[in-house]
């Protein structure tokens, strides 16, 4: 795309095509011969990383759509069956869910890089604006994608975000009805969000083509911010930039794989493992981490219309950046004041993200207002002002000079920015989990055989847990996502197929209608699911004093508790994700005599670890209630451990396969990244 190509193919077939459609010449001039500044640092590899992420999201998304059902009654279950039953479904789902976060992480780094090095300045204004459009499309796509699993956070996120439009004067309510396709968020909403979620990524891909086109017309900016003048300033895209991008990508893949294989739920919200319930809003509605700064801006303004306007303005203001910052010097490296304010701005954004996850009360609201002012002041006051009063440092004469100066040392800023960003990212991520702040006593940590990178379920514990479920829990709680056949699955309780069939035949399963049109009972088969104790929710409530005993299939993933700063950062590295089983185990052992000061509503019991302490379930397990064949102690402690292990397996039956494959992938990725490192060094040895 940079002028007529001198590309002369030797292969006659390629030459034949090239005369009729010069596509090989286009690729050659854009991605092979294309001159790229020789002083680009690793922040410039995020363009390639983003392309990869877009491709991966489209690929995994198209595949997930083959197995997903966009229906309000079936969506949640279809996502679970992807994870449980589809071959490698858990992998594809984790890739897609964590991929969204990785995509946003990369785009934020890409945007901050553009901000720092002035990549939006003449002649790259259109390039920058196209980027802002891509970012807006990404936000819409990410939001609608989060709705699709149809969990509690999906449903209430959809409700809150669509209600933003009701702030528009006069037509707001009509617009919201239009978006919903009904009087509330429901099946039509889910259907159209699915359709649009499938469409928008292809629009993004289209705008990305324009983005790359504009980039190749204007040429890449670079850390020095001076344009390439001579051939000495540039190197050909291939192999130099290609190899460097590949190395950047493989490093990024290691980070990404950590989430896919070891921390799949770290960035998610436990509430989203509860199926959507239009009657109950979760205590704290928190968007995904990548929307938090804007959510904080929205909440910091007490007026509805003004809040929504401020939130959208916070994004739109980016499009005007080329005309707000009119300084001639591009790179903040040579702008002593702009550089400092840039880092302050980064901190403001991170803090806004932190506040977005906090409850909207007290000091958080005041801090949110101050930071919102800071956010807008940076763009609207500071940048215009700086361009008038700041005296920049002298620029290098050329990129080649910059490279020479750099080889004399000073790589400290790079290191410090990496550390700053890592910390910021950690704070961000954790803030999402901080949301459920409470003075509640946290469940004591326990030793689980399934924790850590090589964790496996303890077969004996799973079998004992199954026995406890069958004899005690199943009187009130369903386990409807588990089929009898799962008991023979690898990585499960380890029963044989024959044992499973025998176990299943002990159950009565309702089937039919038969030829006479009647429903009938028959013995269970391995393909059947555990029958629920009650025919419907109403019957369950009626039999349990108004309380609904939750389905236990996902309970260990649907319950969590706050880990607090800085523990959640260590959790990321130690792969701690056993909040669920810790909680379940603690609840079972947390029944105590009511303290004198506490008041309990009628029909509830005091539990030390239950939020609010008043639980409707009477103490379900006592010492000696269940006897084990293997001689394990018949104590409450043992029961709590075994049932929690069993329920963890019920929620995550593919965990062993996940961790096993994760190890293989990590060995490969680390070796490959090592090879890439040396290859990159070798290739670039010629360029210095």
């Amino acid at each position: 795309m940079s002028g007529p190509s001198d590309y002369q193919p030797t292969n006659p077939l390629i030459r034949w095509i090239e005369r009729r459609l010069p596509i090989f010449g286009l690729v050659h001039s854009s991605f092979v011969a294309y001159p790229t500044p020789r002083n680009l640092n690793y922040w410039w590899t995020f363009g390639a990383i983003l392309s990869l992420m877009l491709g991966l999201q489209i690929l995994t998304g198209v595949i997930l759509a083959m197995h997903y059902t966009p229906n309000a009654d079936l969506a949640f279950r279809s996502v679970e069956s992807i994870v449980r039953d589809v071959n490698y479904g858990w992998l594809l789902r984790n890739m897609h869910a964590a991929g969204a976060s990785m995509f946003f992480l990369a785009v934020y780094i890409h945007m901050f890089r553009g901000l720092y090095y002035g990549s939006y300045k003449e002649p790259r204004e259109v390039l920058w604006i196209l980027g802002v459009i891509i970012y807006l499309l990404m936000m819409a796509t990410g939001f609608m994608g989060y709705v699709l699993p149809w969990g509690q956070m999906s449903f209430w996120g959809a409700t809150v975000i669509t209600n933003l439009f009701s702030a528009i004067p006069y037509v707001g309510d009509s617009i919201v009805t239009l978006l919903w396709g009904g009087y509330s968020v429901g099946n039509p909403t889910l259907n159209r969000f699915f359709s649009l979620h499938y469409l928008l990524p292809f629009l993004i891909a289209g705008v990305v083509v324009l983005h790359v086109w504009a980039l190749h017309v204007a040429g890449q900016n670079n850390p020095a911010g001076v344009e390439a003048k001579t051939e000495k300033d540039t190197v050909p895209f291939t192999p130099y930039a290609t190899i460097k991008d590949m190395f950047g990508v493989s490093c990024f893949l290691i980070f990404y794989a950590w989430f896919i294989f070891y921390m799949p739920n770290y960035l998610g919200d436990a509430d989203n493992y509860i199926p959507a319930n239009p009657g109950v809003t979760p205590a704290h509605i928190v968007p995904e981490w990548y929307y938090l700064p804007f959510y904080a801006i929205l909440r910091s303004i007490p007026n509805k219309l003004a809040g929504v306007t401020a939130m959208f303005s916070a994004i739109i203001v980016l499009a005007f950046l080329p005309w707000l910052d009119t300084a001639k010097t591009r790179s903040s490296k040579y702008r002593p004041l702009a550089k400092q304010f840039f880092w302050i701005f980064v901190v403001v954004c991170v803090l806004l993200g932190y506040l977005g996850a906090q409850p909207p009360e007290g000091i958080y609201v005041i801090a949110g207002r101050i930071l919102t002012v800071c956010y807008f002041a940076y763009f609207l006051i500071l940048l215009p002002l700086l361009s008038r009063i700041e005296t920049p440092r002298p620029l290098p004469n050329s990129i080649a000079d910059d490279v020479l100066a750099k080889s004399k040392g000073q790589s400290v800023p790079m290191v410090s920015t990496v550390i700053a960003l890592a910390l910021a990212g950690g704070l961000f991520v954790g803030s999402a989990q901080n949301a459920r702040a409470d003075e509640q006593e946290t469940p004591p940590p326990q030793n689980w055989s399934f924790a850590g990178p090589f964790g496996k379920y303890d077969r004996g514990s799973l079998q004992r847990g199954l026995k406890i479920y069958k004899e005690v829990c199943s009187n009130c709680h369903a386990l409807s996502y588990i089929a009898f056949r799962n008991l023979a699955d690898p990585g499960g309780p380890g029963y044989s197929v024959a044992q499973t069939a025998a176990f299943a035949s002990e159950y009565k399963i309702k089937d039919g209608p038969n030829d006479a049109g009647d429903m009938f009972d028959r013995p269970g088969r391995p393909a059947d699911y555990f029958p629920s104790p009650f025919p419907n929710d109403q019957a369950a409530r009626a039999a349990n004093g108004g309380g609904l005993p939750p389905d236990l299939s996902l309970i260990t993933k649907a319950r969590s508790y706050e880990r607090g700063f800085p523990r959640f950062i260590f959790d990321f590295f130690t792969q701690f994700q056993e909040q669920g089983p810790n909680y379940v185990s603690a609840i079972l052992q947390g029944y105590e005599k009511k303290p004198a000061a506490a008041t309990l509503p009628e029909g509830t019991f005091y539990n030390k670890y239950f939020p609010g302490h008043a639980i409707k379930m009477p103490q379900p397990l006592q010492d000696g209630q269940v006897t084990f064949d293997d001689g394990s102690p018949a104590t409450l402690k043992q029961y709590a451990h075994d049932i929690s292990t069993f329920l963890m397996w019920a929620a995550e039956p593919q965990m062993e396969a996940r961790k096993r494959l994760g190890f293989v992938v990590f060995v490969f990725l680390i070796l490959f990244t090592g090879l890439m490192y040396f290859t990159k060094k070798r290739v670039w040895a010629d360029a210095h």
Partner: protein
Amino acid sequence: MGSEKGGLSAAAGVAGAGSLPGGFPGRFRRSQLMKGFGIVTTASSAEHPTRRDFLFVATGAAAAVGGVVSLWPFVSQMNPDASTIAAGAPIEVDLTPIAEGQDIKVFWRGKPIYISHRTKKQIDEARSVLVSSLPDPQTDQSRVKEGHDQWLVVIGICTHLGCIPIAHEGNYDGFFCPCHGSQYDSSGRIRQGPAPANLPVPPYQFVSDTKIQIG
């Protein structure tokens, strides 16, 4: 995945540009490979085209292998999932309600299975034909269970292009496919029309005189 492939071609391109006549990796001994690895890490090492080639080829090969292997989950997910496989377990069918000369259609793994209670006439017709004259020669005896000659169990899917033939139609007292006119006899064997093969017999067995298990 795409980028890994891109990397492969890029790395291969570089390797090609600097490759020597004589090739790789036949000239290498194991010790030399190890040495090559060691030297690559030190920046001061002199340029040596063959070591350079080795690094590029190794990286390219790793990218190619990783790229190809990581395609597998994306292909494998298309296969039937665990619940579909479980739902395809054997089924039992009670034969008592089927009177002589009648047939029923049951579904197993989503396929219609015809269970015909054949009349004496139908059995005789099926056995009197010269087997070698059939397009897909098979005896009637080989298509039913011994001692249960009156029961014909076939998958009711035309072997031409998958339509469902109609029972008790056509010239052979068997099945007639309305799509393209294939005709099957009372043993489910192809007699006329474009279908290449007989209606297949599913795996089944008699668990009692009046009950079969299909699958």
